[in-house]
């Protein structure tokens, strides 16, 4: 059939022309040449009139296939131009490196916070907010830190121009929450705190803390121990040992510092734990009745415990980061490791 023969010729030339098009512009020209309103393929559709009735279905099928083929070839070629240049050979060397995709990474401090909050959430603690810019009342007075306490002096706290200050501890959230809520209370708060410390490998003027506390009838020191032991096992591993040492914080009594057995050396003593076998990880205690008095919760009815921990420290311990500055420099070679 003459008509089909003609179409086959068109196909041959079109295939070659599309494959040989050196650039996008030439390809565009070819596209118009074949598929444009007055294009060769478009024209060929009109030519179908000349075909005999018997051959029409076959011719129709062929021309449709031709159009489809040219369209697909044009598209493929177009795509190859759009990405880079023609893939002129087929790559069958499977040892070439794969085309990797870059994942983004959550900051290690945020990862640490999320992980800790998650553990406490499972124990029923709800996350709350509390401001960073505070008054002396919330940062000191209501936390039973008296007027002449050394930590109130300017070189331990940043003050702002209106007389308020940047909180030096997340314990402020205890007061904020207890002013608004009646027991039972079981909340956790993560946020930044500020202290005028010169920046070095282990100090920073800004760092993150997590504060948690629970107030109800019948809350005892035993509950504090139970909750923190559960936390330590989940965060540091089931085999971790824990010890509570008496300490002093104005807003808790009795107060305890909590150590875990060094998970680097297993308690034998190493550089990380200063050869003590123990790592100090948090401060805690039973909420001081004086604090309850400030927030008008009756200490003869309710008791509570509170704990606070440094997120930066826990993050550094967990990942073996030896310089706090790395956390805030945000070198992508650092960020990509987490």
């Amino acid at each position: 059939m003459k008509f089909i023969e003609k179409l086959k010729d068109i196909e041959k030339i079109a295939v070659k022309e599309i494959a040989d098009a050196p650039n996008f512009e030439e390809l565009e020209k070819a596209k118009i040449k074949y598929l444009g309103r007055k294009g060769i393929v478009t024209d060929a559709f009109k030519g179908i009139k000349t075909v005999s009735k018997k051959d029409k279905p076959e011719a129709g099928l062929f021309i449709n296939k031709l159009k489809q083929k040219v369209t697909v070839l044009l598209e493929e070629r177009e795509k190859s131009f759009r990405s880079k240049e023609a893939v002129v050979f087929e790559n069958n060397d499977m040892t070439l490196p794969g085309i990797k995709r870059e994942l983004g990474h959550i900051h290690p401090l945020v990862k640490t916070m999320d992980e800790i909050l998650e553990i406490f959430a499972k124990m029923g603690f709800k996350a709350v907010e509390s401001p960073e810019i505070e008054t002396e009342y919330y940062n000191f007075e209501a936390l039973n830190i008296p007027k002449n306490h050394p930590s109130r002096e300017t070189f331990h706290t940043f003050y702002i121009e209106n007389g308020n200050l940047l909180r030096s501890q997340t314990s402020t959230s205890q007061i904020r929450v207890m002013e608004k809520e009646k027991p039972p209370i079981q909340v956790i708060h993560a946020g930044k705190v500020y202290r005028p410390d010169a920046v070095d490998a282990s100090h920073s003027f800004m760092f993150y803390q997590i504060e948690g506390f629970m107030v109800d009838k019948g809350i005892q020191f035993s509950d504090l121990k139970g909750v923190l032991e559960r936390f330590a096992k989940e965060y540091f591993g089931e085999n971790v040992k824990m010890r509570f040492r008496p300490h002093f914080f104005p807003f808790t009594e009795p107060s305890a510092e909590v150590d875990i057995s060094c998970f680097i050396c297993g308690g034998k003593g190493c550089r990380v734990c200063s050869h003590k076998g123990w790592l100090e990880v948090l401060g805690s205690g039973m909420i001081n009745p004086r604090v309850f008095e400030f927030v008008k919760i009756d200490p003869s009815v309710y008791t509570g415990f509170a704990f606070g921990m440094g997120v930066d420290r826990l993050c550094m311990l967990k990942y073996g980061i030896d310089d706090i500055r790395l956390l805030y420099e945000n070198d992508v070679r650092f960020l990509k490791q987490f």
Partner: protein
Amino acid sequence: MRVSFDWLKDYIVPKIDCQKAQGSLTMAGLEIASITDIEGDSVMEIEVTPNRPDCLSMLGIARELSASSGVSVKLPEAIRKNFMKKAGSRGSVKIEIQDKTGCTRYAGSIMKNVKVGQSPKWLTQRLNALGARAVNNIADITNYVMFETGQPLHAFDLDKLEGKRIIVRRAKKNESIMTIDGVNRQLDPNILVIADAVKPVAIAGIMGGKATEITETTKNILIESACFDPVVIRKGCRQLGIASESSYRFERWVDNAMILAANLRAQELIKEFAGARVSGSMSDAGHAIEKEIKISLSLEEIPRILGIDIDLESIKDIFKRLNLRPVKKKNKIIITVPSYRTDLSRDIDLIEEIARLHGYNKVPSRLPSFTPHKTYALEKKTAALEKEIRKILCNLGLNEVITYTLTSRNEVEYLGIPSDNLVVLKNPMSSQQEIMRPSLISEMLEVLNWNLNRKNTLLQLFEINKVYTMNKATGQADETMRLSIGICGNKPGNWKEKPRDLDFFDLKGVVETLMDSIGARDYKMEKLEHASLKENLSSSINVDGKTCGVFGEVKEDVARKFDIKRKAYVAELCLDSLLSSASLKKTFTSLPKYPSIKRDIAILLDDTISASSIYDVIKDEARGLVKSVDVFDLYKGQQIEAGKKSLAYTIEYRSGERTLIDKEVNDLHKKVQDALTKRLGAQIR
């Protein structure tokens, strides 16, 4: 404070092993920061908490060791006999306390015919172990007794005291003193001094004066033991910029029940090691010894707070070990508190003592029953959104950063942010950290710069953190959560793809994907004038007519202020605004029942016509039947007329009600083409 174990052994019977002692002290709350071996002696650096100033002495530590390990304390005779005693105020020294708040009690004694010289070796060694330098036997003995008892002492050369009298008073304006370290110090009425009849001879509780110090020629001395107010001393130290072992103790509180005993203890040692004799009687001016307080503790409070089961005998035993003298009265125990335990005034303080000596590790652990579901007023509202944004942006290959929230005034100015509602620190450490940042952009640019300087060139970063502004209406600072995105550098190529620079449309794509993914519907991006973003490449993100963020290319001069020499793109969005327009709740929409048909279109038109107006025409013309419009090619250049651009689109048509037939789509497509020609003057290619 430093503690020599060899020295500590003098005060305890029976002897105790050093390691056992360390364990007992640690678990009693005296944390041992470090242990150094000095010639066979273990010297411990003990961290004494601020509530326990009574532990800033060898005797104090011995008392704690006794309470926690069961050994007994053995006091030197002079101390045992004279603790809690006061002598008469009229002795051989004339003492006048003018400032009675600054000085509650002052005792002075006189010793004659001292032989000033070197201290015996054991004494020098002990002082060295505690970090004090040996000077001469008199000064050394006063220091020794201070370390032993916690009561600071001072010795004056009696013959150099004008009028041989002591006046405790505030310094006068323009008075000055040369202290024993050879520095001349200007004084004023904030400073409490010890004066003789004419001039200050010591800065009370802080440092003695050069003029009256003990020298080789000193014959007769006056030994001072006194109590000064902690606040007065602390302020004095700050103002003058000096501190001493003596001021360290006074700042933290000194037990005035030791005043007489310490003075007599020093006399005893000076007699022995400097050959002097006591002259006349002690003068002991000021307050009487305060009465010991009593505290009552209900027995049921112990398990209520601690959750331990402890019998009465054990409780009494703990109190006795602490010299707390318990007496049982019905269901209560009444305690008499020794003068040095200022930290004990309420029943909770006693409960802490029980817990401490019973052993925290003997308190059983239990998990409390959880609070039933409850909502709190302060619950964090943006928490879920933050999490979602983090997930989306990390999936898109962006890395999260956390930066300092304190910034410099300069950086705020570089960004063109007005300075009238900044939160400014009153006592910044440096001008680099003076302002609570009003925007996340400055730190984002700093991070970009930091990385570019380290040859990290693919930078796609974000931060979710707070910004701070002063609210003029409330006079308080507002803290709001924002999201910043920073994009800069180039995407490296590989054997298949060429490298290319990241640009505005990479950022725009991230922003669009984010907005779509958090379900923020109907957001609009509009051209915007912005202080730090380039004119034609800065956009706002609006939802319901309200701007919730901006993005664009950073102005070159702004970037250069941050030392960035390449093109940088940043976005900053407000999380509260996003929260109100986002909908994180996903609901299922049925998959399309009918197929869609795609048609391509290539047009040539004026370069000034924006892609969005073309989009609007297409959407407008095809009514609800256009499902998507994609630009797959854009060309400007030599192949076409100047001032024109060539664009190619794929338009996807679909109906939600039926299958579109070919003809219908062709007609529709034709209509779109005609409209583009008519309304935008486009040539169809």
